[in-house]
């Protein structure tokens, strides 16, 4: 029994194997001729645009993968392939181990009705429906009665903090409020997988911050498997378990936030991370030294703390600190000079 659960946990919720998406009339033929070696330039010359180029990755249950990259790098296309809003040109995609690309329309509709939720950049609310009707819409499409769908939708309204505005129309709401409706709508069916395509980029910075906090709070409660597209590195760092950085359809690097900042795989990734204040990303763990009992003070810090949050007290303490993990075991020591180096030097 436990074995079975183990196995189930180890199948990734989303699994992509060399997924390609190429726009254009003779994309299929060109791709077959190229033996998997797709070059955006040569394809462009023959009238095709490369959207996604050989993407392979797994997303495990409860994990949040953030996809980043410049405009036109194929982030949305990747998401749309996985939700099958566009058909991938080649490759395999598995959702909970099931082959997505071989599903028929009926299965696909079932999958979307029960397992997937999506939040759109431009909100994409139905203009003729009120807040509550918008949220209840996917439930009603599923065949739920008006009564049930409304009470469920009301729960969602409360969850995203829009109580009292159930009967507003989308045009009567601010951008942030509209996006809350979008979020509530995508959550109403209690999906396992949650796609968010730049959900906050149409919002102004203050509301964006607020929405991110809200989002983190929700994720803390719900613990869903998430693919999240954003342009904003700070946002990515705040949210991600792992980050994929895309360029011209290729995933240049797929790694944890600190690894991306500390060890960028390519020039492109490096450019991306250059301006990121490291103390905001890195955890104590990434700059600690092996534990040396001779040379350690009594003060303790957690290895999972972000450097920025402790910087002031560390710098004030002048002595070497002891680093502990979440079970209070000592795992290393930390020299304040390292913190200075992270903040001020390269």
């Amino acid at each position, binding site marked *: 029994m436990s074995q079975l659960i183990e196995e189930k946990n180890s199948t990734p919720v989303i699994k992509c194997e060399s997924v390609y998406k190429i726009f254009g009339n003779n994309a299929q033929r060109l791709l077959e001729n190229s033996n998997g070696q797709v070059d955006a330039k040569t394809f462009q010359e023959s009238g095709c645009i490369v959207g996604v180029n050989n993407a392979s990755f797994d997303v495990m249950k409860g994990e949040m993968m953030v996809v980043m990259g410049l405009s036109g790098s194929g982030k949305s296309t990747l998401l*749309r392939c996985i*939700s099958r*809003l566009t058909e991938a040109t080649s490759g395999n995609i598995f959702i909970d181990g099931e082959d997505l690309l071989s599903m028929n*329309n009926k299965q696909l*509709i*079932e999958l*979307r*009705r*029960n397992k*997937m*939720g*999506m939040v*759109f*950049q*431009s*909100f*994409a*609310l*139905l*203009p*003729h*429906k*009120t807040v509550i*009707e918008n949220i209840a*819409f*996917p439930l009603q*499409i*599923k065949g739920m009665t008006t009564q049930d769908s409304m009470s469920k939708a009301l729960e969602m309204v409360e969850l995203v903090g829009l109580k009292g505005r159930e*009967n507003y*129309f989308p045009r009567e709401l601010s951008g942030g409020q509209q996006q809350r409706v*979008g979020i509530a*709508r*995508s959550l109403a*069916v209690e999906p396992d997988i949650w*796609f968010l395509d730049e959900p906050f980029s149409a919002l102004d910075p203050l509301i964006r911050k607020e929405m991110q906090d809200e989002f983190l709070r929700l994720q803390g409660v719900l613990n869903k498997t998430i693919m999240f597209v954003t342009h904003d590195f700070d946002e990515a760092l705040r949210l991600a378990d792992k980050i994929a950085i895309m360029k011209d359809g290729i995933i240049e690097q797929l790694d944890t936030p600190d690894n991306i900042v500390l060890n960028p795989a390519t020039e492109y990734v490096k450019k991306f991370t250059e301006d990121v204040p490291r103390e905001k990303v890195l955890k104590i763990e990434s700059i600690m030294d092996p534990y040396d009992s001779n040379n350690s003070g009594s003060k303790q810090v957690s290895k999972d703390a972000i450097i920025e949050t402790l910087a002031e007290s560390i710098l004030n303490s002048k002595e070497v600190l002891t680093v502990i993990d979440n079970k209070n075991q000592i795992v290393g020591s930390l020299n304040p000079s390292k913190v200075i180096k992270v903040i001020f030097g390269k």
Partner: protein
Amino acid sequence: MLTDLKNSRSKQFLLLFISFLLLYFFVPEDENSLLWRLPPLLKGIPLLINNFLDNLMFKWFTIPIWDPDWQMYEDKPLFRLITRSISDFLLFLIIFIREIFLGGLQTIGSLTGDSLKAYKWVYLPALPWTAVVIGLFILGYKLKGIGLALIASLGFFYVSIFGQWEPTMETLSLVLVTAPICFVLGLFFGILGYLNKKVETSLQPILNVAQTMPHFSYLVPILVLFGIGDHAGAVATIIFATPPMIRLTILGLKKISPEVVESGLMSGCNRFQLLFKVLIPTARRDILIGVNQVIMQCLAMTTIAAFIGAKGLGFNLKVALNGLKIGKAAEIGICVVIIAVVLDKLSLAWANKQKDYFANLNFYQRNKAFIFFVILTIILAIIAYFSAFFFDKGFNYLYLIPFNKGLTIAPILDAGIDWIWETFFYYLNAFNKFLITYVLFVMRDAYLGMPVISTFVLVMGAGYIIGGIRSCLIVGALILFIALSEYWNRALITAYMATFAVGISAILGIVVGSICARNEIAAKFILSVCDFFQTFPSFIYLIPVILLFGITDTSVMIAAIAYATVPATRYTVEGLRSVPPALQDAGSMSGVSNLQRLISIEFPLAFPHIMLGINQTVIFALFMVILGALIGTEDLGQIIMGCLSRPNGAGIGLTLGIFVSFICLAVDNLIRTWADERKKLLGLN
């Protein structure tokens, strides 16, 4: 030199014009020369069409039908049976609605057999006119408020007390039957076109021709297929008014952002749910604007359908115009305008009304207005019933004011016209004579003296310069059709009148438009004036001009100019107002004067949009010139009109209608290509 030519469009046009002039002056007038006129190779087309229709109606696919009168089977052609049943169906609906407004029991009788009619006591009364007026008041109030309520009810009040109630209700019944049919058909084909690219591409040319064919040319083949009467008028109206609905439906659906569609898909909609729960409700507003268009087009066409026997205001108008009773005609014209305005305002208010989801109303609250209406109707009916005893001579004025028994201002109008004639006769006549002898006839002769080769060089050359070989060939082919028919000279006359009208309208429209666009209030004002003038049917424009200039070409020209100036003005104002304010400010900051700013910044940016206005102007002007046949012109329109009373007119009428449509399409192709290219160059989209 050559590269210079390649880069400068104005030089190309200059060269084209010079070659045109050379050909014009050096090709001799010689009926046998191919350079002068092409032989009428396509002469047979009208005959072919006639034969085709004939076959369709009388020979194709006959099936034996039991004839109860003769007690035997009779072979009847299928197509005729179909058109017959369509006619019967439409007629039934029209009469049914008519009987609601005007009384009678034909429709009930047709359902129950004649048995009911035998009883004297069965008499189905109409709604008293007072009830209809009150009903419009309530409707207007519910849709928008007291303003609309007053407009709607006072408008119909006027119609009633001026004794036009019967013809108005006849016209209205046609509109009320055809508009919903157009709506359903338009929505259906629009959705089909949206869902299926192939359907859309095959619909597009049909829509283009249908929307540029003059009204009259529809009428002739319909006459053949459906006979004469209200049902034929309804068919013509449906064919005329459905295309804009299809267009607007496709447009509205296409405007929906792809993310909304995707959000529907991600909610797990199947195709059906996506269409009816996401797409159509989201495009609601555009679709409702389509409904407004449909109603207006229906009204316009029902007046013209008088020529194939549709009853109503159009018919009375036609009679009055034929008898040169200008005062009477003006009175009817005013009614048409009033109805047009009321229908326009009501349907727009309905389109813009948002559904109220908040209210949790009970049955009474939701249907308050309707209940109110029913109660008032009953009260008014009772009053009308008793008032019958007060009026002598058998007319019950509180029930229905009979035709020609109401007030009339016709004598006053006639006296006014006489006065105008007497006072200004000298000036009007002098102007009229001058225009005809020194401008119009000169221009007409110049057009008729144009060798066919120079026409082609001009048109195809323009096509080549603007849109390359593709436009050149399209335009050439469209014109070739006409050149190969017997009617080239007529087409030239039509073209001359249209050119004259378009020239003046464009200048007027652009000047007035740019003056008014300077100022927010003036712009709003002029746009609402345009709205107003666009509401009423083109027919109406002829009344005041006949009044001033009698039955001459001048009248037609002035009506055409008045009608065609509307789109030119509207598009100029819209184009100029849509120039981004940032650019205007940038211009002001670099110290240009107002005029410089207009010429160097605003005009170039607004140019593509203004060109689309000119495109409309051409179509409007052509329509009015053809309609001018009513007054008596000698162009294509006259022949099309003539076809209505000819036994074999269908072929010719249809062919000529298509010719006019081809002229429109050729112009449309040139202007649109040009405007699109400019738009791309300017980075507008």
